[in-house]
C-alpha cells in the first residue's frame, strides 16, 4: 500500500449544507478528498442522498479557525448575566402596560407585522 503518498493525497474537508431558503447553512460532517471538486461531489454522495438541498459548501479544515479546547471551555463557562441584552430583562413592562390597558409589543407581536394597511 502506498500509505505515505495517500496520506498527503487526501485533505480534510468540512461539509455544510442548506436545506431551504429560510434555513441557515448547517454543518454536516467531514470527509477526505484530494481536491475541492471531489470534495463537493463526495459531499453530495455522502450526505445528500435523501434530503432536499439548495446549496452545499465544502471548506478545507485547515482554513477553519475554530476554538481550541481551552477556548471552548472558557466560553461555555460564561456567567449567566446577559439579561440586559435580552427581552427577558424587560419582562416587567408587560404588567406596566397592562395597568395602562395596553398590550405588550413582544417578539411574537412585532414579528407578525409583515404588512401594514395600504
Amino acid at each position: 500500500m502506498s500509505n505515505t503518498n495517500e496520506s498527503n493525497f487526501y485533505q480534510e474537508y468540512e461539509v455544510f449544507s442548506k436545506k431551504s431558503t429560510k434555513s441557515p447553512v448547517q454543518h454536516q460532517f467531514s470527509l477526505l478528498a484530494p481536491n475541492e471538486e471531489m470534495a463537493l461531489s463526495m459531499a453530495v454522495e455522502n450526505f445528500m442522498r435523501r434530503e432536499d438541498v439548495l446549496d452545499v459548501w465544502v471548506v478545507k479544515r485547515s482554513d477553519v479557525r475554530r476554538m481550541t479546547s481551552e477556548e471552548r471551555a472558557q466560553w461555555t463557562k460564561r456567567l449567566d448575566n446577559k439579561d440586559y441584552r435580552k427581552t427577558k430583562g424587560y419582562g416587567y413592562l408587560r404588567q406596566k402596560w397592562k395597568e395602562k390597558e395596553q398590550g405588550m409589543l413582544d417578539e411574537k407581536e412585532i414579528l407578525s407585522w409583515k404588512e401594514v394597511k395600504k
Partner: protein
Amino acid sequence: MYNYIEYGSSEISNDNIDDQEKYEQFMARIEVGEKIEPDDWMPEDYRQGLIKLISMHGISEIMGALPEKEWTPKAPTMKRKLGIMAKVQDEMGHGQLLLRVAEDLMQPYGKDRGDIMEDLLSGDLKFHNVFHMPTKTWADAGMVGWLVDGAAIISQTNMLDASYGPYQRALQRICQEEVFHAQHGEAIIMALAEGTDYQREILQESLNRWWPSLLMFFGPASADTTGSSKQNIMIKYKIRKSSNEELRQAFLDKYLPRVFSLGLTVPDETVHYDEAQEQWIYQQPDWNEFKQIIKNKGPRSKERLRLREIAYENNRWVRQALAKDQVMT
C-alpha cells in the same frame, strides 16, 4: 451498523498527578452529559477503546456491503434492485463517516485510514462476525436487512447518547438510515413469508443458518468466554449503556415475537421466555467457533478480504489520476 465490544488490551492507568486532575474534570463532564470533542483532553484508554470500537464499526460497514452487493444483480425485481443498491450505498457512506471519526482519534499517533485498511488486510483489525458468513439465497438478503440490521439497530441505538461527540453525531445519521434498511429487509421477508411453499422454505432455511451468528452478534456475555472484553470500560465512559447480554435480551424481546408471528421457528427447542427470571432462555452458540470466525477463519473471511483488496487495487488508477503530479506507487 455493526459493533460490539469484544477484544482489546488491558486497562491503562492514569497515574500522572496532572492527568489525574484532568481525568476528574473529564469524568465530571461526561457525568453531566457533555460531549467530548477530538481536541479535548481524554484518557488514553478512552481514546484507544474508541479507536478500536469505531474503526471496527466503520470497517464492518464496508465489509458488510460486500455480501449484500452480491445480491444487487440477482435481485428479483427492479424495485428490489434499486432498494438494495440504496442500502449498499448507505453502508459505504456509514463506513466513510466512521473512518473519519476514527482518523481524527488516531491523529496523535500519526495514523490514518491507510493504516486501518492495512490492519484489516493483515488481520489485526477484526470485522464483524456476521460478515464472514456466506449468503446463499435471496432470503438471506432479507435476513441481513431484517435481523442482522435489527441487531445492529439494538446495539447502535444504545450508543445514541455516547459521550464522544463525533461518534454520537455520526450515529444519529446512521440510525436514521438503518430504519430504512430494517424496513427494506422486512419487505423482502414479508413477501417470502406470505409467498409460495418454496419461498417459505428458503426463508426458514436462511433463519436456521443465521441464528447462531445473530446470537454471537452481541459478543460474549463476559470476558470469561473469549478471554477479553471491553464492555465495562465502554459503559464506564458512557459510550454505551448496556452489557452485551442485555442487548442480546433486548434483541430477542423485540424480534422473537415477530419471527414467531410469521410462522417461522428458530433452530433451538429450548428457546422460551422465562417469566420468573424476566429473560429469554436460549442455547449458547459455539463461542469457540466465534473466536475462529473473527480471526478471519470464517467460511467467507478470506474471500471477502480479497474482494476488499481487489477493490483497493482496482481503484488505484483513480487516485493516481487525481493526484496528477504526485507520484503514487
